């Protein structure tokens, strides 16, 4: 289990990296490498050239403002997870990052890297989509922003074009009167989820349900967000939660594998739909109470 040979560059300026990538679009970008390196070691991926961007200081930042959280391509999962201000502005980040692999992997792995890996079993692609975030990519031609909805175009496939490097991502702040919850079920703690779910739930000023959006993990081939608002015309109760689960399943495509049958994944989607919406509802009410009393 040793990687095949490759040539290696370690630029310290983004412009160098972009030039190198432009010169060899077959190269791969190395940020955290926590998904890429095992694939290389198993020789499931071969790389002719590796451009290590870890020396590019400008990509290593996290900025939280009232608008939202912006983080660079070298922001490690652990740094974003521990960032108090980011957690205050958009609590979904912290909630979801708690479920990304194990702590040791989070110390090296990057959130932007996880997003562009575009694995529908990963937490962060779905979170970016659920939160309506954007990814900024750069090339020698310049920079552009890609909305999450336009980013994930197929299984493990993004809208990044040849020579483009993902340099930062942005997720908007959690709006007022909104709450979040995230949960997933894995075979072992830290494994990829058999099914996972993040929910952003908005309340009306008088505490009714304004919106319920749910992002599902491991039950589709590409990240998916389902709007379940219509299931809760009269608030949240046992039967509306059941209905929401069934409604969500209409858009999900759970598949069976060695760890779980399709039926079981569907059951997890149902169960998590009820559990996580309930938790998000409680979170929204708590935040609304804080906002009112603040």
């Amino acid at each position, binding site marked *: 289990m040793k990687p095949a*040979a490759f040539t290696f560059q370690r630029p310290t300026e983004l412009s160098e990296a972009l030039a190198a990538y432009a010169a060899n679009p077959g190269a791969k970008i190395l940020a955290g490498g926590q998904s890429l390196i095992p694939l290389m070691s198993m020789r499931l991926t071969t790389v002719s050239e590796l451009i290590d961007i870890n020396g590019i200081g400008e990509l290593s930042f996290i900025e939280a403002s009232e608008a939202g959280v912006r983080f660079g391509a070298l922001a490690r999962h652990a740094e974003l997870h521990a960032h108090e201000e980011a957690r205050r502005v958009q609590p979904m980040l912290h909630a979801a990052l708690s479920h990304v692999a194990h702590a040791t992997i989070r110390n090296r792995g990057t959130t932007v890297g996880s997003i562009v890996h575009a694995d529908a079993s990963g937490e962060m692609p779905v979170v970016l989509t659920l939160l309506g975030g954007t990814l900024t990519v750069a090339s020698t031609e310049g920079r552009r922003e890609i909305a999450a909805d336009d980013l994930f175009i197929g299984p493990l496939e993004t809208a990044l074009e040849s020579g483009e490097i993902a340099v930062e991502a942005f997720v908007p702040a959690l709006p007022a009167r909104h709450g979040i919850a995230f949960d997933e*079920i894995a075979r072992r703690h830290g494994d990829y989820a058999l099914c996972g779910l993040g929910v952003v739930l908005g309340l009306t000023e008088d505490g009714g349900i304004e919106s319920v959006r749910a992002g599902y993990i491991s039950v589709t081939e590409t990240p998916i967000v389902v709007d379940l608002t219509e299931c809760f015309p009269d608030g949240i109760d046992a039967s509306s939660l059941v209905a929401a689960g069934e409604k969500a399943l209409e858009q999900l495509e759970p598949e069976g594998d060695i760890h*779980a049958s399709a*039926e079981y994944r569907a059951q997890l989607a149902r169960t998590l739909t009820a559990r996580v919406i309930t938790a998000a509802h409680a979170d929204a009410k708590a935040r609304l109470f804080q906002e009112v009393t603040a």
Partner: protein
Amino acid sequence: MTTKMMGEPVARVEDDRLVTGRGRYADDLAPEALEMAVLRSPHAHARIVSIDVDAVLDVAGVHAVYTYEDLEGALAEPLPLLIPHPNLTHGRTQYALAKDEVNYVGEAIAIVIADNRYLAEDAVGLIEVQYEFLPPVVGIDAARAAENLVHDDVPGNVAATMEQSFGDPEADIGGAPHRLTFDLEIERSACMPMEGRGTVARWDPDLKRMSVWSSTQTSTGVRAAVATKLGLDLSQVDVITPDVGGGFGVKIVHPWPEEVLVPMAAKVLGRPVKFTEDRREHFISSAHERGQQQHIDVGFDDDGRILGLSVQFWHDNGAYTPYGLIVPIITSTQLIGPYKLPSYRVVFQSLYTNTVIVTPYRGAGRPQGVFAMERTMDAIAAYLGKDRTEVREVNFIQPDEFPYAHGELSFQDGRPLIYDSGNYPEMMRKAKALVDWDEFEKVRDEARAEGRKVGIGIACYVEGTGVGPYEGGHVQIETSGKVKVSTGLTTQGQGHETAFAQIVADELGVRFEDIQVVTGDTRRSPYSVGTFASRAAVMSGSAVALAARAAKAKALRLAADALEVDVDDLEIVDGIVRVKGAPASQIALGTLAVLSNPLRYAFDEASRAATQFAVGDPTKPPVAEDDEPGLEGKDYYSPMRSTFASGIHIVIVETDPETAEVSILKYAVVHDCGTLINPRIVEGQVHGGVAQGVGGALYERMAYDETGQLQNASFMDFLMPYVTEVPESIEIDHLETPSPLNPLGLKGAGEAGVIPGAAAFASAIEDAENFTITSMPISPSELYALRLSKATDTATERTNT
């Protein structure tokens, strides 16, 4: 003696080097060695049409490439069938490198030796093999159906059929008031030590000597195999076991193809060569275990007393049978557990499949046997509406019935199945007390009222441990007074350096700190068998005790001469021989060691005292006729038969009503391994076994697809428990029923923890869910599927008559 060491939770002497990174495991050795990579079959069943290595020949850094064509002499013969058995009528073993045909994904086809592993893997990728595909046989159903054959010349895929019985079970079952028949299934798992296999070899052309370091459970076995395969004299081969990163059974198999190919390459190339197995290789080219299908037919009376038991099972032995029939024989005999059976018949077939070989994994067939018997006990209890512990108790062998022979059954060592000692009713009393068994019904009912599902499960086992044929011990007292102990079997984490030193300290009367133990080095102990079957403490523990007694006898004899007293008046305390009641009259063991070796030449202060003008009675020869120089003791322990440890596990689980996830609320163990040498080490063995039991019950399986590809050959997808999956605590109570078969009353403890795991969890989940569990391991997905099928179909698997 001042401080008794036996029975004390002594801290391990191994730990200082291991916690500071100074351990020496196989891959840590010989940094200058060339490294080997193996081309392995990507297909489960195929004929090899051609192998083209031309592309490798020019690769920089590559030193050699070998295929079957390059093997000579005994190396070109199939690898040995280690444990032949008359019933193994169609035993087959693989070649070190595949000849004409491959029979599992992972079978070795070619090797490359290069400057390093990276380059070796590059070169392996350049070898081109043309295959002609053959239909693969995967799983027991396919093997039994025998529409395709693994080996052309093995009809029905049947390697062996074996039957053993006593009494007349058909008549007893037919005549019994009640009868149940049902089918059970248990899937494959594997040892998965954290360190894979590894071998380093160095050929010394000046001495004409081969040194091999291998991560093995048997250094003498590897030595014999290397000598045979390479055409060397046994005396030209040394095998040394370095620190070994876990074994759990898989490293008893020998020689692995790599274990003979590495020395071969080292000899040809005149350079040290190393093979370090990677994790994927460990999954697809070492060994697995457990997979069986079972059919149970039992007759019993109104009290639940078994009147007759008939078991038929089908054992998946993988593509080859290097380890013979050991696993199914153990299943078939240890299935009986702590119970008295008036009559018993067991018939098994050992079947070939195009999958990795099956050889013992900790427990070695017992988890399957215990599963069969304990599922039977639970089925009887459910049928009669009785408490599950009562049904077990009514069948227990009683303490006054030992030694207890199970008819004429013979055990894995070919000797009669006779239990030496035990106290099963007391064990049950302790086990029930640990979990408040009688109160659980209330707990379960209260939980159900809250919409929760909790259940309690129990499993009992008896484990034959310390199988022969023998082990040896050598105890040498040096002139410094330090004591060097050697035994030939190997160590994979069991703390032998500590436990055997404890034994010698007590036997010899020397300080624990002055004793150094070496295991698994054929230069020190050329005669030995190996570490398996929970035998190290029993076999080598007994052997080093006997050797220490021999050394002590000689020391006392020399001291009696020197001090001019009677041997019976002497004692040894902290390495000093002294006269009882007159401790001022004394002589140190180190001094006796000097005196024991009459010298012509002095080389230091101590030896001056032993030179010819310093000591000796001129009227006698310096070394008496019946004596030999040196203060040493050597002895071997060879028991008549195995000693039988026992235990009971009880687990309480909660199953999630929606997600069918299983969480462990409590895990309790009562364990009887006879006299304890080091209770801390024994508890550690139990903890580790329980965790593997949890893995085998709830998480681990080898997921082959129908083409014979192992779909989960990584730690990502083969779900070994992390700390988050094991019980938060394990309650342990010991019972010490000494074995009458060996000098210290020892029974083995190594495997016990894992044995009843699957059975106990099945029992607990069944209790929580209120439907029958017949197949393990069980995942939440499978439990959910069972719930759905039970909801629509209330018919039971058991045919009640």
